[in-house]
């Protein structure tokens, strides 16, 4: 029975881990469905009135509006017997406006409300989840790839190669994180998902590099690697066929950790305006709209984005913890 199978069995015994994996899988499935265009394809459709409230609040809000409507003076006011010279034009405009509204038939309430332009918040959250997860996973994969390759080379060969990568690591870690991120964002110029992935991937590899380098330092002198050398295995084969499977659990756990980290980073970037473009939605861009909405008492968009993000990130973190316990039982 291979060690992977044993680790998988250990993982299955961990109930929290399995539950977290189920939540993560649900998020991934939803994101995949949205990417395939099965759900939330029309997220940018302006289907509701501006700031349409969630349906479960609708009754209460309508009541309030009715009251305020009743309190307000209705109909044409009697202006001391002077006829309104614009009455005819105004009536025409009113008629045309209500006719247009009727033709568009905007909803007054939506399941979880609408944003400023009347877009469905639930669909935005699903589409935003797709973006955030894609950014998190892709950036973490990029970071893990760079970190693993650099760490393997530095740890395995040592010498000047190790010195070079350590120097690079020091440079990257000596610059404050946000400053570095913003600098790269400024250099890359245009906004977009690919840019965000590049920014996060190029800045986030350092931690993985450090761990993998240490693992390679430890493993390259192990007897099984020496034995592989003795049967004539090349350097590349020893690095990737022999050592890598033995340190891959470290990579896997780091990958999972960085997905969480990068989902959060994407939110920060988008909030600061360096994230995805205006034609895309992510949890971060939803949160960026929140400050102006909250002044108006519109809380449903920030609630939807926060809820989705908190659930995804928590599930991912719990899953990562269980993964680590299963893959490396000694840490326990």
């Amino acid at each position: 029975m291979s060690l992977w199978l044993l680790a998988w069995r250990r993982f299955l015994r961990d109930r929290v881990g399995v539950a977290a994996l189920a939540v993560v899988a649900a998020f991934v499935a939803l994101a995949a469905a949205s990417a395939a265009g099965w759900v939330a394809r029309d997220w940018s459709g302006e289907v509701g009135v501006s700031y349409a409230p969630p349906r479960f609040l609708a009754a209460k809000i309508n009541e309030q509006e009715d009251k305020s409507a009743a309190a307000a003076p209705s109909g044409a006011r009697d202006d001391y017997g002077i006829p309104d010279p614009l009455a005819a034009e105004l009536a025409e405009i009113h008629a045309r406006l209500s006719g247009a509204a009727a033709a568009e038939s905007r909803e007054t309430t939506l399941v979880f409300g609408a944003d400023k332009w009347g877009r469905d918040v639930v669909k935005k959250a699903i589409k935003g989840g797709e973006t955030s997860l894609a950014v998190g996973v892709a950036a973490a994969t990029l970071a893990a790839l760079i970190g693993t390759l650099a760490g393997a080379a530095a740890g395995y060969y040592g010498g000047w190669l190790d010195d070079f990568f350590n120097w690079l690591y020091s440079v990257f870690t000596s610059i404050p994180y946000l400053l570095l991120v913003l600098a790269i964002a400024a250099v890359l110029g245009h906004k977009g998902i690919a840019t965000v992935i590049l920014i996060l991937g190029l800045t986030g590899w350092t931690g993985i590099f450090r761990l993998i380098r240490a693992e390679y330092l430890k493993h390259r002198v192990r007897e099984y690697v020496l034995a592989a050398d003795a049967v004539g295995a090349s350097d590349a084969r020893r690095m990737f066929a022999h050592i890598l499977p033995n340190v891959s659990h470290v990579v896997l756990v780091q990958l999972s950790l960085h997905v969480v980290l990068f989902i959060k980073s994407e939110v920060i970037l988008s909030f600061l305006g360096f994230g995805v473009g205006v034609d895309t939605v992510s949890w971060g861009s939803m949160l960026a709209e929140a400050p102006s909405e909250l002044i108006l008492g519109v809380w449903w968009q920030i609630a939807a984005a926060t809820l989705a993000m908190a659930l995804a990130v928590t599930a991912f973190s719990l899953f990562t913890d269980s993964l680590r316990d299963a893959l490396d039982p000694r840490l326990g």
Partner: protein
Amino acid sequence: MSLLAIDGLRVDFADVQALKGISFDIPEHTTVALVGESGSGKSVTALSILGLLPPNARVAGEILYQRRNLLKAAPRELRALRGASISMIFQEPMSSLNPVFSVGFQVGEALRMHLGFSGRKARERCIALFEEAGLSDPASKLDAYPFQLSGGEQQRVMIAMALACEPQLLIADEPTSALDVTVQKQILELIAALQRRRRMSMLFITHDLALARAVAERVVVMRRGEIREQGSVAQVFEAPRDAYTRALLACRPALDRRPARLPVIEDFLRNEASAGRGDAGTAVRPGKQGGESIILEARGLAKTFRSGRREVRAVKGASFRLARGRTLGLVGESGSGKTTLGLLVARLHPASAGSVLLKGEDALRVPRKVFKRAIQVVFQNPYASLNPRFSVGETLAEPMRIHGIGAGKGERRERAAGLLAKVGLPAAALFKYPHEFSGGQRQRIAIARALALEPELLICDEAVSALDVSVQAQLLNLLRDLQDEYAMSYLFISHDLAVVRYMADEVMVMKDGEVVETGGAEALYADPRHPYTRALLAAIPK
């Protein structure tokens, strides 16, 4: 009267019966040796006496210490006993000492805790204890940290610590197996002298029968949680009643005879009538004599390790020749450079100076693949030398794939199954992973991997040292059979002089990176020239 009496002690872990109801006594002022191979339950016995078993252990039976049942004693009572009346010496002195405290502080801690000594009084007592434990210049050693002491000195500190509160019972769990033979001898003499002088009782746990014979008055032989035999040293060693004891005594290679095959435990247990036939085969194996071509020659091989300004000369110029089908034994204590020399020969480390000639041709001019194919290595630790993520089939197929032996997966798998049969493992093992095998089986897999390339020279670096005596015998027999079949040469590296005596035609003795003596095995063991060789041979417990 007995100081400690164990009666019907049973210890169960989750699904393993570690001890299946054992009973024995430790009389006052007596040394009792508990002998057994790994998994026999000897360490579990020691831990149960001290009440140090892990919480998932279920214990039944009685351990009476001065008529008090230790198994029913309260944790506080046990703590008071531990270190004061019963103390213990462990196998690994390096990991038993805390590296961040001076050794004086650590020994003083026991004095302050159990005897309530003040700082200065503890210090004086420590110096006296260090002196008793045979540490030179004890006053200055007091402030030394563990890493500043040698392995032997560390074990002396552990002994001083164990003696600090004048225990009545000293438990020594393999106290010398991590030490070199010459140091082992000194420590054994020290322990024996202390036991007599202090009139203590001692429980001496070991896997080595010869050691038990050297220090103990009574012997208890254990196997798989049961006692096979107990009695006085004279009775157990001169006239063993149990087949397993007889097998253990016979399967260890001796210095004074060289049977064609080592008897193994199964021979004795299966057919008790034929037991003892190992003694009959004193004839030397008909080795090939002269006229063989030289497979390998080393000329002035040297290796210097540098770290910063420090320079360590691990091997200071070694030269030897090895003929086809012959075995060169390489003997030395830890730090002698014997493993480094093996790695230099296999070109797993680049040499700093000197050259290796493979069949008369400079190894550096031989293509890497040809060279690797000719020389294979079996490493010491079978738990570390197999890649845990590779199945046995993958491990065996890899060298064939790299060197293009066998066409396609199917043929390579067939060959791998054949190799497994050669080393005595079933073909079903192909699909299993290393962690599913015992140490001896893993070493067989490692040997099969080396055989896959049909090398001309096999370097065995302490290949059997990590294994139990009975498994050692099986593997030594296997290595000899394979040598005859493939006409391989062996470079057999070991610290164990008896094993080398059994395997080698020629022997080379190394000390501090230098070859101090080389010669035919017979002659070298019969008439050692160099004082170091003589010291090594004298240190072996008879």
